[in-house]
C-alpha cells in the first residue's frame, strides 16, 4: 500500500535535550492515525518534521511520495497546536492569503471561501476583521484555512485542545468528511479518549521514542487487563472476603467501587457468578482497558511510582477537560 508518511530513524535534539530518538513511522494513505503521548513526548516536533518546518538531525522523512514535505506542501493541510491568525486582517482576506500560499487558483477562490464560511455558519463575517470574532469563530476560520485547498494529507497538532463542544463536533465532522474524501489524517493528542474515538490506529510516543504502534482493536485485545468492576448493592463484603475468592488475584478499592484483577487463567464469567453469590451487585462489568490504561501500563515500567501517578493524573485530567459531551 502507498504510504502517505514514512519516517525512518528520525532524531532531533534541541541543545542537550533529545526530542526524538530514532522515530519510525509509516502512515498508509487514506488512514486516520493518532499520535499519542503525554505533554513533552515529542509529538509536535514529529509533526513539524513531517511538515519540514523543522529538519531532523538524522534520519529520513518521506511525505506523499516526495523526499520532503517542501515538495508537497500544497497537498498538505496543517493545523498547528498554537493556532494564530492575523488579527487585523479581514476573514476573507486571511483565507485568500493562506489559500494562495497553498497554491489555490485565484479564480473562483472567493466563491470557495464563501462556500466554506456558509458551511460553518460564518456566512456573514467575511468582511469582519479577525480580531472582532469570538475565539470559537476564529477556530472555525482556522479549520477552513487548513482544509480549504482540499489536501491529500491533514496534519493536526492537538486539534481538540481549547475547543468548545460545538467546535469539537464540527472539527470531528470535518475530519470524517476529509477522510471520506480520501485524505489521510494524522493528528496528535494527549487526550487518549479522542484517539480512541477517532483513530483506526495509534502510535504512542514517550520521551521521543515510539512505544506502541498498532490498531486500536488489536491494542485492546493485547492489553486486556482482565479487571472486573464491582459495586455491591447493599452490604459491602469487605476486602478480605473478596480477596479470598480463588479467581481473584488483586483487590483495589476505588471509592464505592472495587477493582478486582483476575488471577491467571481464571474465567471472568466464573468470577462474576461468584461475586453475585457473595453479595448482590449494583454494578458488575468487565472493564475494557482504555488507551490511557495501556499507555500508563507501557510507559509506567520505565517510571517511578510517583511519576506514574503524575502521568495518570495528567492523562485522566486532560481526558476530563477534553471530553466533548
Amino acid at each position, binding site marked *: 500500500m502507498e504510504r502517505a508518511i514514512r519516517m525512518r530513524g528520525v532524531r532531533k535534539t534541541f541543545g542537550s535535550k533529545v526530542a526524538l530518538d530514532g522515530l519510525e513511522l509509516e502512515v498508509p494513505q487514506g488512514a486516520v492515525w493518532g499520535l499519542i503521548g503525554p505533554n513533552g513526548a515529542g509529538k509536535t516536533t514529529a509533526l513539524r518534521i513531517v511538515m519540514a518546518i523543522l529538519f531532523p538531525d538524522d534520519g529520513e522523512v518521506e511525505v506523499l511520495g516526495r523526499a520532503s514535505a*517542501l515538495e508537497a*506542501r500544497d497537498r498538505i493541510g*496543517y493545523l498547528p497546536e498554537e493556532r494564530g*491568525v492575523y488579527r*487585523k486582517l479581514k476573514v476573507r482576506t486571511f483565507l485568500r492569503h493562506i489559500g494562495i500560499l497553498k497554491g489555490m487558483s485565484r479564480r473562483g477562490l472567493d466563491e470557495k471561501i464563501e462556500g466554506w464560511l456558509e458551511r460553518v455558519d460564518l456566512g456573514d463575517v467575511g468582511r469582519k476583521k479577525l480580531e472582532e470574532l469570538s475565539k470559537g469563530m476564529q477556530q472555525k476560520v482556522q479549520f477552513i484555512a487548513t482544509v480549504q485547498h482540499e489536501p491529500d494529507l491533514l496534519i493536526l497538532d492537538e486539534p481538540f485542545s481549547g475547543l468548545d463542544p460545538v467546535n469539537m463536533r464540527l472539527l470531528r465532522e470535518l475530519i470524517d468528511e476529509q477522510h471520506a474524501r480520501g485524505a489521510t489524517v494524522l493528528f496528535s493528542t494527549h487526550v487518549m479518549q479522542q484517539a480512541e474515538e477517532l483513530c483506526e490506529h495509534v502510535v504512542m510516543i514517550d520521551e521521543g521514542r515510539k512505544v506502541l504502534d498498532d490498531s486500536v482493536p488489536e491494542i485492546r485485545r493485547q492489553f486486556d487487563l482482565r479487571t472486573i468492576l464491582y459495586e455491591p448493592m447493599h452490604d459491602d463484603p469487605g476486602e478480605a472476603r473478596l480477596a479470598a475468592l480463588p479467581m481473584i488475584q488483586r483487590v483495589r478499592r476505588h471509592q464505592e467501587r472495587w477493582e478486582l484483577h483476575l488471577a491467571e487463567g481464571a474465567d471472568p464469567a466464573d468470577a462474576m457468578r461468584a461475586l453475585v453469590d457473595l453479595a448482590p451487585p449494583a454494578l458488575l462489568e468487565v472493564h475494557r482497558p482504555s488507551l490511557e490504561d495501556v499507555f500508563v501500563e507501557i510507559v509506567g515500567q520505565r517510571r517511578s511510582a510517583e511519576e506514574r501517578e503524575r502521568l495518570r493524573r495528567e492523562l485522566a485530567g486532560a481526558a476530563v477537560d477534553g471530553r466533548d459531551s
Partner: protein
Amino acid sequence: MNPRKVLQVASREFLSTAATKAFVFGVLILPAMMSVLIFVLPRVMTATPPAVRGRVLVIDPTGRLVPSLAEALSPEAFIERSRELKEKIRKATEDRLPAPLIDQAERQGAFEQALGTVPQLVVEPLPPGEDVEHAKRALREKEDDEPRVLAVVQIDPDAVEPAGDGTYGAYALFLRKGVDDRITEQIERAVRDAIVDERVAGRGLDADELRVLMRVRGARTVTITETGERETNEILKAMLPMAFFMLLWIPVITGGQYLMTTTIEEKSSRVVEVLLSAVSSLELMTGKILGQMAVGLLLLAIYGGLGVAGLAAFAMLGLVDLSLLFYLAVFFVITYFVIAALMGAIGAAVTDLREAQALLGPVMIVLMIPLMLWFWIMREPDSMFAVVASFIPPVNMFVMMLRMTSSAPPPTWQVWLSILVGVLAVFGALWAAAKVFRIGLLLHGKPPTFRTLIRWIRMA
C-alpha cells in the same frame, strides 16, 4: 523558491503596511509639517501684526539729535525703509534664490513679516536737564489713554562731540515692559544713525555718500565643471547632502522597522507556523523583505518625487546631478537589504518589541554614526575617516551619499568599490538572516543574545 508565493507574501506585507491609516498619516505628516513650517506658520504669524502706537521721550543734552530722530522714526520713514529693504533683499537673494521663490515669499508677506507693520511713534524731546528717573517713571505707569510712553532715550552729553580724552559717549535706552523687539531695534537704529550722522557731519563729510562708499554688492558665484559653468546656489547647495542623506535614511529605516514589527507580530500571534506550512522560511523572509522594500521605495518615490518636483517648479533641476538619483536608488536597495536582513533577523529571534529593543540598540547606534558625523564628513569628505567609513557596511552607502553630494565628490572607482562591498554585505546579511529566520521563528521563551544569534548562524 516559488515566485508566486514570494510575491503573495510580498504583496500582503506591502498592503498590511502601506494600506493603513497609520502609514498614510505617518508618510504625510513629514511633508505636512515641513510645509507648515515654511508656508503656513509665517502667514499665521503675520496675520496678527502688533499695532504699535506710542511716544518716545528723548533727553538730549547735545540738542542736535531730536529732529533727525523724529524724522527717522516717522511712519513715512518706516515705509521708505521697508521699501528700500525689500529691494535690497530682492537684490541679495536674486543670486541665491530663484525669482519664483522670491515672488512667492513676497506674496506671502514674508518681507512685511520680517519688518513688522508700520508703527506710529511720536518723538517728544524733554528738557536737557530733565531728571531721567522722573522720565522712567512714565514707563511704569499704567496709562489707559493712548499713546503710552514706550521708551525713554537718554543721550550722553559727549555722544556727538568727543570728551576731553577723545572718546565718544553713547546713549541709554529705557523700555516699557513688553515692547516688541522689532520696535526696539528700530529705535536703537534710529538713535545710532542719528548720532553717527551728526558725528560725520561734524567732520564736514556727507553721511549718505559715506554709506554708498562702504557698500559692496553681493558677488555672483559660479562653479566651473568639466561640462560647463553652473550657477552655484550656496543655500541649496548646503542643503543638498542632507536632503539626499535623509532620502536614503528615512525609507531604509522605516522599511526595516516595519519588517521587524510585522515579523514580531506574526511570531507572537503564532500565525507564523501556519505560514511555514505553506512557504519555506526563506520564501517567507524573501517575500517580507521585498514587500517592505516596496514600502521603502514608495516613501523614496514620494519624498524624492516631491523634492524633484519642487526643484523643477523653480527651474533648479540643474542644481542636482541627475546621476545622483540613479546612485540614490542603487544605494537604497543595497542599504535596505542589509538593514532589512538585520532587522528581520532580530524580529524573528525575539517574541516582543521590548526584547527587540535590546538587540536593536547596537544596530541603531551603528546607524546613527553617519547621522551624527555628517557635518564632519561634509566638511572633510576626503578625510581618512570618511574614506574608510565609505567601505564599511552598513554605513558605507550613507557616507558615500554624503561624500558624493559634497563639494569634493569621491573618484568613481571608490563609488563602485563601495557598491561592490555593499553587494557583498547584502549577500552575507541575507545568508545570516535566513538562518536566524529558520531557527528563530518557532522559538519562544528567553530572548536570545547576540552570541546565541551567532551560534544559530554557524549551526544551521
